[in-house]
């Protein structure tokens, strides 16, 4: 006989041996004792909780003639035949592979015949959730009123997949997860029977790793046993389950609590290089934090012995972190656990998680303020008077807090008020390079500008598509024989362009090809352009010239310009075409005042208002508001 896994050897053969399902077994036993056996049962519950075992025991118990207190005797021929799976009247069907209507029809037909050896014909349909809808429906009528002496036992891990019409026809028993304590006791019992030495701590590790499945627990125990000669050691248990020691967990937890992310990452690296299982680690950590949380509430809530740590450890641990942080840690861990299911690179997840957990800081004010009122509202209906006091205090606190924040706002003043108005996109302060602009401005002429404007399209064709799209909303605003100033409508694009050396190089290259001379390209944002020009004029003393000598030209030239411009604008296409004034190109430095004036009506700049509104208002009076178009060329 080849070796059999522990869970097969130690499959319970009596209701007594079923661990942790007292309610279910007692009910079943009572049904047999009082002879009130139903014709259909549904056993539902997570893996390894004893559903199939219970079904087999039940089949024995109903058929055994020597049963005592509802337990099968396990001695008679029938009991032994059922244990070996040889009795024709107990039929175990794997619904997962026989899930079609055909197979169910087969059952239905054969159920008509009376049992041959035993008293009852028992159909055990395992993994019943895999039946197809058709199969379920085919079963309905048989399940409702089967022939005498036929019993159906359906077993499943996923009861929600079973149609309600089936569930209403059966007696449903829910098997509970097996508690660590029960699993521990059972393993202890088995090991005692096998006469194997064990460390209790190792059994606790296994019991916790099994997560409520007795079969899981025994599988792990099997492996641990095969590791060492008939001995259960803690180290082996940790190795097999992929768990980490409590000491390591404690170290990691304290590093998280003290926000030492580098150290925590080191610990995490050690854990990973040892080949520990990421999922297991997260589960261990969650239950560890849970223990700390419970200990904070009341040290009596957990049995410290079962966790493998000492009382002092818990004292220091629970002092290290507040309950709110613990809650947030558990939330994070839960999220990551969910996501990690789909990944083949758990290490990256764990590292990100580590950093994230280190970031969790105690934020007492907002968290407490949220937490406390919630408690109050729930407490209020029960005991109004003390709760009311608490609420008043709470409100007072809140008012104080609010006042504080208001004051803070006041002190920090404009800056804070401005903040929300700022766009979400970060405004990087890229400085306009005045050193490059002024030389170009100084030598700028209208002729060059027109020239550049004519060449603009050709230049664009020399650029790559992304570069061209950047320049799409820009245009040259001033040009000299050696340089051009390009204004961008949006500050964002201006930043992009200024930081892009490739673009500038490409544009300069293109101009050089087209013009034959070297050309410099400078960018400005459009909204700053008028100001830059005025500053330039101020700095170079051009504005002083304006009131003295330039006054006549400033008033005469603009007038002619303004009076001519609209007449052209009415005929020519409005915006992009530069409306070239009829007056022979004035050198650019003289023009800015005009433009500054053009801005005047909009900006109401006080410095120029008197002189500036003149030509425009005059033009408006002449031609009417609708026709006059103020352009900033």
């Amino acid at each position: 006989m080849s070796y059999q896994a522990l869970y097969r050897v130690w499959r319970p053969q009596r209701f007594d041996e079923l661990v942790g399902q007292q309610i279910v077994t007692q009910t079943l036993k009572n049904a047999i004792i009082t002879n009130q056996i139903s014709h259909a049962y549904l056993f539902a519950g997570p893996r390894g909780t004893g559903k199939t075992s219970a079904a087999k025991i039940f089949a024995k118990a109903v058929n055994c003639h020597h049963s005592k207190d509802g337990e099968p005797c396990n001695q008679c021929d029938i009991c032994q035949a059922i244990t070996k799976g040889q009795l024709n009247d107990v039929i175990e069907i794997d619904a997962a592979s026989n899930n079609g209507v055909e197979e169910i029809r087969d059952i239905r037909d054969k159920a008509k015949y009376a049992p041959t050896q035993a008293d009852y014909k028992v159909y055990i349909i395992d993994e019943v959730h895999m039946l197809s809808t058709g199969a379920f429906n085919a079963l309905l009528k048989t399940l409702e009123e089967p022939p005498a002496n036929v019993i159906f036992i359906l077993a499943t891990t996923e009861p929600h997949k079973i149609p309600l019409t089936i569930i209403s026809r059966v007696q449903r028993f829910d098997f509970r997860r097996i508690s660590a304590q029960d699993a521990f006791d059972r393993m202890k019992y088995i090991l005692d029977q096998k006469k194997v030495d064990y460390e209790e701590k190792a059994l606790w590790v296994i019991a916790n790793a099994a997560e409520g499945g007795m079969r899981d627990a025994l599988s792990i125990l099997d492996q641990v046993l095969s590791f060492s000669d008939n001995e259960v050691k803690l180290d082996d248990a940790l190795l097999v389950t992929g768990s980490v020691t409590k000491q390591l967990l404690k170290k990691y937890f304290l590093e998280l609590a003290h926000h030492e992310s580098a150290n925590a990452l080191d610990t995490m690296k050690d854990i990973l290089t040892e080949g520990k299982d990421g999922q297991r680690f997260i589960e261990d950590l969650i239950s560890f934090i849970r223990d700390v949380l419970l200990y904070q509430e009341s040290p009596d809530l957990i049995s410290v012995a079962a966790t493998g740590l000492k009382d002092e450890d818990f004292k220091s641990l629970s002092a290290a972190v507040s309950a709110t942080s613990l809650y947030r840690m558990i939330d994070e861990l839960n999220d990551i656990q969910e996501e990690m299911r789909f990944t083949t690179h758990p290490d990256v997840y764990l590292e990100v998680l580590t950093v994230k957990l280190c970031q969790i800081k105690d934020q007492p004010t907002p968290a407490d303020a949220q937490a406390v009122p919630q408690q109050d509202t729930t407490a209020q209906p029960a005991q109004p008077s003390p709760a009311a006091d608490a609420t008043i205090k709470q409100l007072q606190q809140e008012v104080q807090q609010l006042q504080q924040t208001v004051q803070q706002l006041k002190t920090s003043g404009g800056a804070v008020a401005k903040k929300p108005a700022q766009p979400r996109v970060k405004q990087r302060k890229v400085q306009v390079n005045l050193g490059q602009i002024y030389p170009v401005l100084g030598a700028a002429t209208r002729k060059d500008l027109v020239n550049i404007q004519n060449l603009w399209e050709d230049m664009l064709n020399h650029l790559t598509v992304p570069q061209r799209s950047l320049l799409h909303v820009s245009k040259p605003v001033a040009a000299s024989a050696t340089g051009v100033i390009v204004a961008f409508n949006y500050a964002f694009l201006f930043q992009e362009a200024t930081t892009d050396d490739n673009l500038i190089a490409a544009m300069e290259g293109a101009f050089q090809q087209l013009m034959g001379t070297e050309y410099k390209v400078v960018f400005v944002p459009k909204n700053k352009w008028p100001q830059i020009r005025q500053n330039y004029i101020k700095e170079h003393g051009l504005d002083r010239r304006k009131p003295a000598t330039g006054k006549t030209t400033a008033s005469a030239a603009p007038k002619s310009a303004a009076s001519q411009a609209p007449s052209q604008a009415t005929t020519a296409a409005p915006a992009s075409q530069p409306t070239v004034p009829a007056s022979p190109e004035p050198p650019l430095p003289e023009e800015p005042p005009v433009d500054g004036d053009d801005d005047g009506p909009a900006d109401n700049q006080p410095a120029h208002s008197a002189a500036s509104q003149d030509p425009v208002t005059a033009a408006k009076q002449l031609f009417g508001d609708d026709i006059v178009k103020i352009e900033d060329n």
Partner: protein
Amino acid sequence: MAEEPQERAERLQPRIVARLKRILDKHELAHAYLFVGPDGSGKLEVARWLALRLFCLHPQDGEPDLTCAECQRILSGNHPDIVTAAAEGRQIKVDEIRHLKAEFTKSAMEGSQKLFIIQDADKMTTGAANSLLKFIEEPGPGVYILMLTTNKSAVLPTIRSRTQVIEMQPLRRADLLDQLAALEIPKGQRLVAIGLTDSVQQVQEWCADGWFAQAVTGVSQWFNSVSQGNMLAFVEVQTKLVKLATDRDKQQVLLDLITLIWRDALLVANGISDPDRLHFVNEQGQMQALAGQYSMAQLLTVSQLTLEIRHLLGQNVNFQNIVEQLTIRIVQTLRAVGAE
């Protein structure tokens, strides 16, 4: 094959092989095992070794002799009592499991043992996995089932509880690097590659036509632009990355590279500068600059964004969409918090 299979198993997983030997000596081999470990950790090699060991007619000192008829047939993949199943495409469907189930009901052709090897057990559909449940719970004597998987948590819990889970030990980083160095793969790529897989063969495949080098540079360039909050990175997705992502495997590798490079950035920001821990060593300077430029919360958010992308690909979202969306979200994250 350059090496004999049992030598490779021995070299890749000495502890596991030793453990299995001990189990075999005591005649305590369980009927079902689940081998868990990343690609290249030697799952299949160990399974093959176990097959040889079980069937070999004259094992010597717990090792198969590799010369007898049985061994020869196993090595050439012709043994009738060894049944294997592997994913064709992305899933193992019920139909593919069906011939396996038929085999379960029959006794061994020759001798008294039968061995089933199911590769990529996590890729079984729910139906396929469920239909195996009863077979692997209590098979007859002499029937052994080995399931191999890279992702334990994707295997049905009811399957897991019926098997003994054996986790492969991760390979040592230095060993892997040496092996890759022997294959003359440049150092920068070596370091990145071991962050993605443990399989030397796989890395060799990637490097074969210089694809891997391009992928690494492509992702690095993308990283450099995007970490500056430069929206030109969005264009680079189209011009560089999409061209590299020619098939699904390569798309996955590219996404993993993206995840990896941001993970490095996060580690650097946390004060870990040991080059042994990082993969993109060439970008370390840039990462250090990032650490000063952005807050930890920002880098953390970005890293989390990159963790989601593999999942999206699994849901059949178009590769270009994934990376472009990621680019926009990263740039937004990096710029937004800077304004505060």
